[in-house]
């Protein structure tokens, strides 16, 4: 390749955007993690840091999953159940999620 033209100013600009992107990713992650640890939404965590009014904790933290028809098919295969037997599938889903939580929260005291 022949000598590259001098685009060092443009290279610097690209580098600056790169730094900005990395920084905003780090900031977003910090807010998501700290919000989760305090049972808050990310938006409320931002408001808390800015000392604006916010809801202290979620009134009823819920864990929901919306299962589509094809999800029931996949889960039925996995659990070897009838895809029509949605109650049984939901029961196994609940068990699996509880199992995950138990393993994850090793210091939960249970």
């Amino acid at each position, binding site marked *: 390749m022949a000598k590259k033209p001098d685009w060092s*100013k443009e290279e610097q*600009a690209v580098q*600056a955007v790169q730094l900005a992107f990395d920084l*905003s990713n780090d900031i977003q992650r910090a807010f998501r993690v700290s919000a989760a640890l305090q049972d808050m939404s990310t938006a409320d965590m931002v408001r808390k840091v800015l000392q604006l009014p916010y809801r202290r904790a979620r009134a009823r933290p819920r864990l929901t999953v919306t299962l589509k028809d094809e999800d029931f098919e996949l889960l039925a295969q996995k659990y070897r159940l009838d895809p029509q037997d949605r109650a049984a599938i939901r029961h196994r889903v609940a068990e699996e999620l509880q199992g995950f939580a138990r393993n994850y929260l090793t210091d939960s005291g249970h």
Partner: protein
Amino acid sequence: MDTQSLTLALGDATHAGRTFDVMPVAGDEPVLQVTVSGAEETPVYITVTDTQILCLAYLFDTQELNPERLHELHENMLRISVPMPLSALGKTGDHYVVYGALSPTSGTAEIMQELVTLAENAIDLLQTFEDYLA
């Protein structure tokens, strides 16, 4: 046009029914992070130099891709880059990006059009290249 006047101009503006949320990012060179309403998942980063206004959205990183299909992905990226309106595909570090460059004398209307098009293109590209992710 500099980043400061751009921040003020975009903050109150609407273009094709879209609004713009502008957040300056701290650093040596001024960079703006602009979120276009309706395309919040793909923020656009803007920086202004003497020669161009560079607008850039991040798509994915090298390590997120299936290495066996990398060549095919690059081929498709090069081909899609030409007809794609107002934007082109490229790479900075390990990040694949979609970007558009404007003349520094561009007005707010041109910049807003670029931002809306770029953010929408980024969403379309993420869907188009979903199969290449590992």
